[in-house]
């Protein structure tokens, strides 16, 4: 508990920095979002002063000094008021994001945990049989696999398993013939639609975990306590899993928080390819439609989620490794 409390200020400062970055970024760039929207409308005819005012209010462009703008921005965030979406007018941004968030959380959460566990276990196996054919196939294969762009893997899977073989649906989060709700037909449809995106994230992420775990294991396998356990005649599986892997997994656990940002990024691209109704596809649409309020809020939501997840991983790490608690 004391450890958690001590980590809290770091989290708060990081959160503040991320929120401020989100404020500064659009203001550092030439032109305001409202100008972009006005430019679009100006192409169709002259813009009156009242129209300009309406657009500026709609896009959340406050007037006044930078400091008062910042204050208004912080106040709006505290109230959960991210303005009105431009694409999904007149839906508020918070509602649009709220609808997309569960999809991404379920998809990315499940597939990342799966990728971590399978990758780590395979990494232990590869390190245990180092130099064997399995090891070289796994390391070279994984190097190649992690080099595949997420979206490309997604496209190939979509083509092979979705289009040619027709095993899985190609687009969307659920079939258009079912309506969202808590019933079995909807759940089954959603599950079927999530297989390909989840599989993409799984195989794109697996390699990194395997390679990382293998490297950690190589370090640990040289330690005296492992040799001692082996000399005691303990079964190989016990030595590998209970002596070596338990210690080797620690660096991977810290990497987990860091890799989360990458997984989130990769899953964004995956969602775009599959038209999956999550945060990533929403961000893509916001960018394409120049929906700045939605884009800004999405970036904030994504960053804050990753920061919070990192914080949780940090706490778990303190639980796993008592040495860092001091």
């Amino acid at each position, binding site marked *: 508990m004391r450890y958690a409390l001590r980590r809290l200020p770091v989290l708060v400062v990081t959160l503040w920095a991320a929120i401020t970055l989100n404020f500064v970024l659009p203001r550092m760039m030439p032109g305001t979002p409202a100008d972009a929207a006005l430019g679009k409308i100006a192409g169709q005819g002259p813009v009156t002063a009242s129209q300009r005012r309406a657009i500026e209010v709609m896009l959340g462009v406050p007037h006044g000094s930078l400091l008062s703008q910042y204050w208004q921005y912080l106040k709006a965030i505290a109230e959960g008021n991210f303005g009105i979406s431009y694409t999904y007018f007149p839906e508020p941004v918070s509602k649009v994001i709220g609808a997309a968030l569960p999809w991404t959380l379920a998809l990315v959460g499940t597939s990342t945990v799966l990728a971590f566990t399978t990758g780590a276990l395979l990494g232990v196996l590869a390190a245990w049989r180092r130099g064997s054919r399995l090891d070289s196939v796994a390391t070279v294969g994984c190097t190649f696999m992690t080099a595949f762009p997420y979206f490309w893997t997604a*496209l190939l899977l979509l083509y092979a398993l979705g289009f040619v073989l027709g095993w899985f649906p190609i687009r969307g989060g659920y079939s258009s013939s079912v309506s969202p709700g808590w019933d079995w037909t909807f759940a089954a449809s959603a599950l079927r639609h999530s297989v390909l995106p989840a599989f993409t994230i799984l195989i794109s992420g697996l390699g990194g975990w395997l390679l990382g775990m293998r490297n950690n294991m*190589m370090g640990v396998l040289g330690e005296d306590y492992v040799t001692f356990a082996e000399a005691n005649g303990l079964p190989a599986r016990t030595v590998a899993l209970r002596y070596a892997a338990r210690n080797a997994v620690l660096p991977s656990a810290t990497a987990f928080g860091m890799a989360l940002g990458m997984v989130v990024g*990769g899953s964004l691209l995956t969602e775009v390819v599959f038209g999956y109704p999550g945060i990533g596809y929403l961000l*893509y649409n916001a960018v394409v439609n120049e929906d700045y309020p939605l884009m800004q809020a999405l970036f904030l939501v994504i960053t804050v989620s990753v920061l919070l997840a990192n914080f949780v991983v940090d706490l778990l790490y303190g639980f796993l490794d008592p040495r860092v608690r001091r």
Partner: protein
Amino acid sequence: MWRTGRKLVGTLWADRKARAGASILALFVLVAVLAPVLSPYSPTATSFARSAPASWSHPLGTTGSGQDALSQLLFGTRVSLLVGFGAGLAATSLAMLVGVVAGYVRGPLEVVLGFLTNLFLVIPGVPLMIVLAAYLPSRGVGTVLVVVSVTGWAWGARVLRAQTTTLASREFVAAARMAGEGTWRIVWHEIVPNMVSLLAASFFAASTAAVLAEAALEFLGLGNPATISWGTMLFWAENSNALLTGQWALLVAPGLCIALLASAMSLVNFGIDAIGNPKLRER
């Protein structure tokens, strides 16, 4: 420094994986340089039949606007290598600057730089890249290069900072300091030469990330769609539904090239890791 460099290359070449990676990399550089000679047609010529399947005159078929896909693939190597190496160099320089200063200097600057590094480390790169690209008014290879460099330096900075901190407490640095050497000289002549393998590793790691990031940005249509690159090839292939019309070569070929280039860079990094950590060396 020259002799350590040669020794490093020797160790690198002895590693089978690094050798394979370096050979593939050299091949790509050769293709990029010789693209005008190797390409059967101009990559921008739109005079051919549209969306033609693979044939002897167009081994990869033609694009939806009637360009020869093979010529585009060969010329596309240039953009990927340029952005990969360019952003790799920019990100590593930034990482070196921030990392070495944060590792060597004491006081508020160290705290601020360390915090900045950690912040950029946890902010997810792809969303930041997308948002940055969306805000920037001009779209082209230069923009992509800047965006990818800005989002890709943090990991290297962290590693280099840790190494600088340990090096700064070594005897030879203390000796140099007592001999009255200036900070600048100590950093350049005592510390940086001892980080060559780390610098090389973060360069290749940043380049790999840059190649993938560039492809992703252009695939999303956030680059300039008129550039000839692997990412824009994928963008146009997806836009003209190349897979559904059976022109899978338009998607497979650029994607495979990206994967091959990125894995060649990570293979080289395996050898560099082995220099730093002899346990990983192949026997």
